[in-house]
């Protein structure tokens, strides 16, 4: 049951990710990226990360990607034109990426042999209480700093995108 769920959502994630990279119109890429984030949220649930799964859907898929879709709809720039592509880059880049992937997969298989397994319910420490406790005790400093970071981002975005006051 776990394996079937994992396979279904892993395949959906990979297909949507390929779609993000391959589609010409940015809106199709954006919607495929929402699909990737949704399937990743379910994989997080399999790994016992219930709060992070909900946060992924609310923050990432439900706010950040809506922002992307807004910008794409507002700019309305249309599909990407296939020109000025360098053949050398493709000829060199794709084999290198596949080699990178093969290397990482090989080392991962070496380090974590088949008997190191994940079952649904194997880790119950991902509740909101556990995250809250860790967030406000051990990780208090990063929490405060990211608050200031978000404030800077808000001010920056407003300053960059406003109309000129002439």
């Amino acid at each position, binding site marked *: 049951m776990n394996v079937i769920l994992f396979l279904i959502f892993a395949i959906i994630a990979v297909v949507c990710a390929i779609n993000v990279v391959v589609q010409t119109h940015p*809106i199709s890429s954006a*919607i495929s990226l*929402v699909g990737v984030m*949704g399937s990743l949220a379910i994989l997080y649930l399999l790994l016992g990360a*219930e*709060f992070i799964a*909900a*946060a992924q*859907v*609310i923050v990432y*898929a*439900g*706010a950040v990607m*809506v922002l992307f*879709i*807004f910008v794409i*709809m*507002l700019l309305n720039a249309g599909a990407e034109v296939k020109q000025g592509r360098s053949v050398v880059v493709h000829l060199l880049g794709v084999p290198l990426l596949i080699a990178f992937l093969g290397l990482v997969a090989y080392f991962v298989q070496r380090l974590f042999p088949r008997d190191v397994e994940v079952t649904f319910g194997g880790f119950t420490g991902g*509740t*909101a209480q556990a995250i809250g406790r860790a967030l406000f005790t051990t990780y208090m400093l990063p929490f405060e700093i990211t608050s200031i970071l978000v404030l800077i981002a808000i001010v920056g975005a407003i300053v960059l995108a406003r109309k000129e006051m002439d």
Partner: protein
Amino acid sequence: MDSFIVISLIKILVVFGVLMTTLAYLQWVERKVIAHIQVRPGPYRVGPHGLLQPLADVIKLITKEDLLPSYVNKPLYLAAPFISVSMALLSISVIPFGPTIEVAGYHTWMQLTDLNIGVVFILAASSMGVYGIALAGWASNNKYALLGGLRSSAQMISYELPMSIAIAAPLLLSNTLSLRELVGTQAGGMLHWNLLRGPFPQIISFIIFLIAAFAETNRVPFDLPEAENELVAGFHTEYSSMKFASFFMAEYANMITVSCMATLLFLGGWDAPWPAAYGSSFVPVIIFALAGLIALYHGVNAVRKRDKLTFPAFGVIFLIIAAIFVLPIVQQWLLPLFWFCAKTGVILFAFMWIRGTLPRFRYDQLMGFTWKFLFPVAMLNLLITGFLVAWFTK
């Protein structure tokens, strides 16, 4: 394991059936309420007091010509109402309607599934519902639809912020994200409800939640993006027949979800306002008996000729329901269900009452209201709640 699956399937069918009927009849209730606010009878001719009007509307919408314009982006055009409806229905799956119920020896919760993260799950489903509207506006390939869709999605995501913060405040009092446990912590009568208890009664949170809920569900006074005389018809301009009906089903389902959330978070769920020892189990009996007697009285002294037949029928039905409430065998699950539905019904009535009363906000007034007033007030409320809870809990 298999009895769990069978019971779950039965529960899904029951909840889905009741939900679909409620959606249809909620529209009837809304039309009647708004009509009486405007001193006119409302739907009256199709069936007794217009009760078959939803059926007529469903038949009309199904048999209308289902257009698929050639200039739209077909995959997105077809997917948008589907996303809206599925996300709206998904949030209903975690709402508890009552405590446990025992049928033929099987104990089960009156809830499809209880998640540890129930509250955030509903927030997540409503965040994803924004996509239905944004994609509907984009796919229609129509300037007005695009503008309406963008405005509506921007409104929805802006109002999600005060809503989430207003939800966080009673969670500080109840200390759990699971909806069933939330009701459990509010047991014991009106003074234990999150609205009125603890170091800081959550009245401000309740009001902020309701205002944000109005905006989330695109209801008056925040329904500029979909009003009929603004921007042609907003994001659903190019939709007809069943697809149009799906958007409105999604809106009513969202309304039911936020009313249920308000009941569970602030009004104590299925808890009776005062303990059963002081006679709260007789309240439904009294209400239905009074309704039956009034209906019988108006049936006997009928003003309109048709009422001579329908009002006594309704009176008899209400008296039978009042009698059912007295039976001790059903009291264990019917009474909490009654209280839950009564509280949700009051909030839904408030939705319709406000629709019949208030004018709508202009778009910049709407956005200014949330960012400059509602969000800071919600933050302040959370701060005060957190401070008082920390002060008074050792």
